[in-house]
């Protein structure tokens, strides 16, 4: 009985600790949190087999009454294997996130932010769009394009085609430059972090 209580209490403590980790932003901590919670739940599963007794391997010696229940142990083994696989996957994902953006924080969803933003500032944007100056600018641009199309003669490159090529070159270059700069930005941001003097703060804080 005492062993069972110990299992349940330890399982509860592990689940509590894992929950704290799971509520943080960085994926690497979330991975640790899932591992800890998984272990806690495995202990609860073991506790479900009732009071401790002899090992189930010895069923021929002691008879089925005196051995412990093997079924929860099989459950736990299966659960351990599954947790292992998912830990591996999540770690890979955390690493990939760090590779891409220099941090492995779980990001907020962009579209959600956009919809909320639209609800708050939608009117201002519509105001902006209605401004005559803007409309004129766009009309001028369209005219320019039409002219560019017209004076295109066979055998020589028109303005529009040149502009088009230049534009796509520019965007390609910009995309590449940004992709190259991204990890550096992230790492730079990371290295700027000052480690707090408070040890507790260092371990659990800094969830940016």
């Amino acid at each position, binding site marked *: 009985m005492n062993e069972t209580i110990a299992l349940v209490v330890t399982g509860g403590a592990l689940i509590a600790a894992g929950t704290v980790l799971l509520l943080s932003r960085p994926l690497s901590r979330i991975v640790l949190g899932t591992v800890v919670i998984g272990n806690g739940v495995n202990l609860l599963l073991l506790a479900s087999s009732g009071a401790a007794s002899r090992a189930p391997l010895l069923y021929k010696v002691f008879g089925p009454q005196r051995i412990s229940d093997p079924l929860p142990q099989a459950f736990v083994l299966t659960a351990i294997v599954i947790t292992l696989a998912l830990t591996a996957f999540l770690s890979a994902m955390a690493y990939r996130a760090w590779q891409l953006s220099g941090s492995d924080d779980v990001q907020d969803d962009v579209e*959600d932010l956009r*919809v909320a933003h639209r609800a708050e500032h939608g009117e201002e944007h519509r105001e902006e*769009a209605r401004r005559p100056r803007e409309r004129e600018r766009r009309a001028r641009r369209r005219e320019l394009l039409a002219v560019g199309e017209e004076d295109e003669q066979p055998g020589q490159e028109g303005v529009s085609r040149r502009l088009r090529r230049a534009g796509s070159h520019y965007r390609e270059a910009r995309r590449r430059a940004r992709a190259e700069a991204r990890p550096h930005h992230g790492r730079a941001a990371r290295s700027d972090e000052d480690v707090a003097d408070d040890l507790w703060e260092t371990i659990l804080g800094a969830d940016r």
Partner: protein
Amino acid sequence: MIAAGSAGVDGPASALVALPVLLPLFAAGLKLGVGVRLQRTQRVISTVVLSTVLAVALVLLIDADRYGPQVMYAGGWKPPVGIVLVADRLSALMLVISSSVTLCVLLYSIGQGMADREEGTPMSVFHPAYLVLVAGVSDTFLAGDLFNLYVGFEIMLTASYVLLTLGGTVTRIRAGATYAIVSLLSSVLFLAAVAVVYSATGTVTMAELARRFDELPGGVAVLAQISLLTVFCTKAAVFPLAAWLPDSYPTAPAPVTAVFAGLLTKVGIYAILRTQTLLFPGDRLSDALMVLALLSLLVGILGAVAQTDLKRLLSFTLVSHIGFMVFGIALATRAGFSGSIFYVVHHITVQTTLFLVVGLVERRGVTTDLRRLGGIAKLSPALGLVFFVPAMNLAGVPPLSGFLGKFGLLRAGVAHGGAMTYVLIAAGSATSLLTLYALAKAWNLGFWRAAPPQLYVVGVVLDTVETDEESPREPAAVSEAGASSGGSGAVDVDVLAGRSEAASFGGRAITTGQPPAAMLGPTAALVAFGLAFTVFAGPLSSLTVRVADELTARTPYVTAVTGR
């Protein structure tokens, strides 16, 4: 003829029950062994295996309908110790629908791979992971004990993490993180629930549990029921637990999103159905489920109305329509179950079709943002048609199967009576109208109107991030990531002229011709499949009534498994 439910019938098909799980798993291993060189072999293996699974599922459905549940004892171990796979009418019906849909999506993805001439990495992971996903879904449908149900879920989820983060792009990693964490948490809770159930009853075989839960003190049974319901509602994306879905599904590749949206949430619904009928009969938590259904319906559809991105709009309609199915289950009457099952069958097909169509739209117009799309119906009438029919079907326009499913549910609600039920009937009708509104908006903006000028400008590239006044300036992180929904940059291709010159957008080649037949074909097949539910609504609804009969009776299932 053997009467259904007579003790210990070993039906003619009981040997086949394990095949829907084993074949895809075996094929997945085979394909990993074959590797990426032999693309044609890969395609042949996948197609043959999934067609075989469909055939097996059909045989199982006919046999389960005729001779009662088909049971397979793994390794000859009888319950309460052994693992059992059970194919009763409900499982077999779900298997038939899921294998039809997965086969169509596979053909679509093969078509996409051929059209994009993809060689190497993504497809080589995609095919095995997809087959593992199919195996997991089949295992979930066939599992006769709670722990095997958990394992089935895990097989399915592990494959889904891989599929969701294919290629490891910024947006997919962001979305996959949310999805993986929520799924992991629900899996852990599932395991804890299994521990509770096992320590209270000493078994996890559902047929045994059905008997033992009746003898338990109420509190323990309620605890088990609430924890299982929480898990399954997370998987099924019932409202308060649905926040993860619209953020994660839209970023995946089109075939993946289609299967996820169509199937994975319905697996959760299946699990709710199974536990509510077999383990916890009666209407103990009906009121709570009614409230959840109400919230799902309204919040989901209001979310859909607020979206401007086609994929996210459809994801929100998915959350909302899950409410219909939960409503049917909450009624806890035979008519309610029957209506719910009919709706599940219809919804799997229609939702999958719509997401496949959106994948085709994305190939055409590069974006799925409705503010930047337009003129698709003129460019490609076929594409317009395959969107319009399932969209109207989803909204429940008579005489399509969506209308029939909703009507069946509302009629079951009226027969059940009660104030809460009438509130839900009103909410369901309002949801239908709002679905029609949201989809009509999508149709008008994306398909029916003339193409918006800022996208199809001939000549100069307009950088829409800087000149687009309708949308707020997005945070820097987005434009850096080149978010698919934000759309950074216009396309310098004269789409309206129908010139099929290739251009590059965000590093991805786009084509401006008609959608490839290899992708349009499976989509059209699914549209036809959805329409078949309308044509054969009579036989289908009598089948769902028989399924509901078997579920509410409980004895055929229990007797078939335990032999008592």
